[in-house]
């Protein structure tokens, strides 16, 4: 792939990251646009995104991308000017163009030459534009956009005459206008790899809040990628200096930003064009600033220092970006370190206790105690902060859904209103990575199986458009994600019938199941109630995978449904994967840890309170009959006899189901760091990991959902 001269891998990396953001933005906005959320701002935003993409791909030298983004930008330009209207065909072709763009991005990321053909899609775009040209009046829109994009005339001329240098700015601007313009002086960070793009962004931004009267380098030069690290723009605007500064500070890699309001300009430039030229030459002596020679009234940066009014240190105005980009692996390293601290902190507390036991308190041990407590407190805070850093809004996952739902509904002939709530809800990035697939499946089911075709809905008295709602919120130490639809609901009888047919449940067992229990059959592998197998929502292999994935994250999934009314899936996940609170128990000589999220309650009951029902020990808990699992049996440890005939029972739950675990002893609660058993040991049924306790001993972590399920499987035995 031939890029522009001097492009390094880092440049490409930066380009990829930023282009990703723009593409995502475009996708979101296009979907909103189609939903008739049209507004001038939205159209502006869309245009700007495409404009930026075009600029940076041109700078990069990616011929095909530049060509495609140019065509897209053109389409958006037509849209915002009212020359064409939003239509499904237009959206389709634009979304398709985005896909093509994404493909090229993938190729770029993989370092391969892209074989994507853009001619076709470019032609489609242009063709669709032609067809969509509306006969609506132009003048009204012109006005709006003229305000919004002050330099449009300048820009469009620049676009049209890409080759020749643009006459309007450099020569014909009267000095008077310069006097009334706000002068914006920008220095781009020398470390920045793509100053042209930054210059471009600044100019673009300024153009949206005023009219660019003059700029150095010229707009042409900037668009052609010839910007250097200094930029000066004369802007006709009614924004205040602080407003402008705030806007400009959103752009990264700027090492200094100076706004000189109009009034000040007059005093500086008019009496002293010579003065400024002189001082500039003084300053520039010895500098190899060749560009300085071309500059007109604007002058270069160094001339300002002694202008009097302006600020002493330009350095002070560094780009005030308040965020940092951090490599995820660095976060993982931090997490691991904190995890080790957590272990050591517990160990420290233990040692202090042991010391005091052995040697009695003394001022020394008290000092140690105090320090240890302090270390503990700081470690907790550190842990919390790092967790927070790793938290991301769930919007990262949610944002690709509107497009997906839109495409799917179209494909299946459904009309769906898709509502998302709580996209700001945060959770750990490790969870975010894993939760996407299960949610996609649930959404596909909602659209494909839940929502009825429009005619059917009308027939049963529902609104024609179906509703699918995706909602996220915090609940205690968890995040809850709901996928709800107002469609057909799940037919419990059908599920039971299928389960019997597939041999998952015996007819007798099925008849004994409550509706609540029967509904959970949909999570059993091999069950499919789809009347026809369609590739969209799968063959019923989906639901069990969804549950497996959710449980792998230490979460749970439940479903509520009313036939004819709708279905709601509720996924509950812990906020973080790595460190959890656990109930420790003893079984034989081993210690086991049960995640607190799974623990309902601890009981101590006489052995006689267990009743055997159909060969299985059970315990009556309130009005529920809980199956009992003797962990001694599960793990091959001889049962111990307790002196007082009482048993320790830990009631655990997963989703709706509960089970009582009989253990030898309870050992308190502790925060533990989850570690894997590793490849050598392999997957052990009933165990989901291992942890190192404060005293250095190892505790095995129970996999509650799989334990509970082992009972159900037994229950359902045909």
């Amino acid at each position, binding site marked *: 792939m031939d890029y522009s001269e001097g492009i390094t891998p880092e440049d490409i990396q930066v380009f990829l990251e930023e282009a990703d953001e723009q593409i995502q933005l475009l996708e979101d906005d296009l979907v909103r646009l189609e939903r008739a959320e049209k507004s001038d701002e939205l159209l502006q935003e869309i245009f700007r995104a495409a404009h930026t993409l075009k600029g940076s791909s041109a700078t990069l030298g990616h011929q095909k991308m530049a060509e495609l983004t140019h065509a897209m930008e053109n389409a958006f330009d037509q849209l915002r000017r009212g020359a064409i209207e939003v239509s499904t065909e237009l959206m389709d072709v634009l979304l398709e163009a985005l896909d093509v763009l994404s493909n090229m991005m993938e190729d770029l990321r993989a370092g391969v030459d892209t074989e994507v053909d853009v001619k076709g899609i470019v032609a489609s775009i242009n063709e669709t534009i032609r067809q969509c040209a509306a006969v609506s009046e132009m003048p009204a829109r012109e006005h709006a956009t003229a305000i919004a994009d002050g330099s449009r005339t300048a820009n469009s001329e620049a676009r049209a005459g890409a080759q020749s240098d643009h006459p309007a700015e450099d020569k014909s601007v009267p000095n008077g206008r310069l006097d009334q313009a706000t002068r914006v002086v920008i220095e781009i960070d020398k470390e920045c790899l793509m100053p042209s793009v930054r210059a471009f962004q600044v100019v673009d931004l300024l153009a949206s809040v005023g009219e660019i009267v003059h700029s150095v380098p010229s707009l042409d030069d900037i668009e052609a990628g010839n910007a250097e690290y200094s930029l000066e723009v004369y802007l006709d605007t009614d924004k205040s200096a602080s407003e402008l500064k705030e806007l400009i500070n959103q752009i990264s890699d700027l090492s200094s930003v100076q706004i000189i309001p109009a009034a000040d300009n007059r005093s500086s430039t008019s009496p002293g064009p010579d003065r400024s030229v002189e001082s500039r030459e003084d300053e520039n002596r010895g500098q190899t600033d060749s560009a300085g020679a071309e500059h007109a009234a604007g002058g270069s940066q160094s001339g300002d220092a002694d202008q009097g009014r302006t600020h002493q240190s330009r350095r002070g105005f560094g780009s005030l970006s308040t965020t940092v980009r951090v490599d995820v692996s660095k976060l993982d390293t931090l997490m691991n370190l904190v995890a080790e601290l957590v272990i050591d902190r517990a160990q420290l507390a233990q040692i202090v206790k042991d010391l005091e036991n052995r040697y009695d308190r003394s001022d020394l041990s008290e000092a140690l105690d105090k320090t240890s407590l302090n270390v503990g407190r700081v470690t907790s805070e550190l842990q919390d902060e790092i967790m927070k850093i790793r938290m991301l809004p769930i919007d990262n996952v949610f944002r690709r859904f509107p497009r997906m739902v839109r495409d799917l509904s179209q494909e299946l002939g459904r009309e769906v209103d898709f509502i998302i709530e709580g996209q700001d809800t945060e959770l750990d990035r490790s969870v975010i990575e894993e939760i996407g697939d299960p949610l996609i499946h649930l959404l596909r089911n909602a659209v494909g199986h839940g929502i009825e075709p429009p005619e059917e809905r009308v027939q049963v008295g529902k609104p024609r458009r179906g509703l699918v709602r995706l909602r996220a919120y915090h609940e205690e130490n968890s995040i809850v994600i709901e996928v709800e639809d107002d469609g057909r609901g799940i037919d419990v009888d059908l599920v039971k019938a299928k389960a019997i047919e597939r041999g998952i449940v015996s007819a007798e067992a099925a008849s004994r199941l409550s509706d609540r229990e029967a509904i959970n059959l949909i999570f059993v592998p091999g069950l499919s109630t789809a009347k026809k197998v369609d590739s969209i929502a799968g063959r019923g292999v989906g639901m069990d995978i969804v549950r497996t994935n959710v449980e792998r994250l230490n979460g749970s999934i439940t479903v509520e449904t009313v036939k004819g009314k709708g279905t709601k899936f509720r996924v509950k996940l812990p906020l973080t994967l790595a460190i959890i609170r656990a109930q420790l128990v003893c079984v034989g000589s*081993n210690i086991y840890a049960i995640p607190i999220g799974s623990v309902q309650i601890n009981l101590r009951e006489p052995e006689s309170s267990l009743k055997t029902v159909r060969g299985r020990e059970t315990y009556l808990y309130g009005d529920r009959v809980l199956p009992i699992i003797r962990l001694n049996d599960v*793990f*091959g440890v001889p049962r111990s006899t307790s002196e007082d005939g009482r048993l320790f029972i830990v009631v655990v739950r997963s989703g709706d189901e509960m089970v009582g675990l009989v253990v030898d002893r309870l050992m308190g609660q502790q925060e533990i760091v989850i*570690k894997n058993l*590793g490849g*050598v*040991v392999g997957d052990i049924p009933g165990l989901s990991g*291992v942890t190192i306790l404060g005293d250095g*001993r190892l505790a*095995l972590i129970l996999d509650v959902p799989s334990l509970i399920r082992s009972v159900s499987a037994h229950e359902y035995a045909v």
Partner: protein
Amino acid sequence: MPETAKSKRTHEYVVFELAGEYYAVDVSPVEEILRMAEITEVPHAPSFVEGIMNFRGNVMPVIDLRKRLGLPTTERTKNTRIMAVSLETGTVGMIVDAVNEVTEIPPEIVEPPSPILKGVDSDFLVGIAKMAVDGQEDRLVVILDLVKVLSAKSKEALAEFTEAVTGSDI
């Protein structure tokens, strides 16, 4: 040593004992030699996995090398040691009867795998050395490729190999 064979720069080996035979492995991946410590049993784990233990704050699986090689197990003695070995997948502990010494084994005294061992997956075996161990002269030391042994997929291949090594009169 002929050039065709794997070039054996002189380097150090850990010589250890297993079921009355001497073995040696390259010292580079060996992180530490530990006394027998508390090993947490993992229910339903593969039979040769003795359990897991806390090694420098990490969870390390511990393998009984006897079981791994298909040798009969024996009582632990005060000489039993755990060798913590660094593999690609992480550190693994190996229980051996005793660790004798860490010493240089010059390539000249290493014999390539005997023809008797053809037919057995002799990837595990680097060679056999005849050397002094623990003050005793002329002992046979079987030099193993530890990584291959520990990551061997097939138990049968290992067992065959072990039989060939221990049974044959080299």
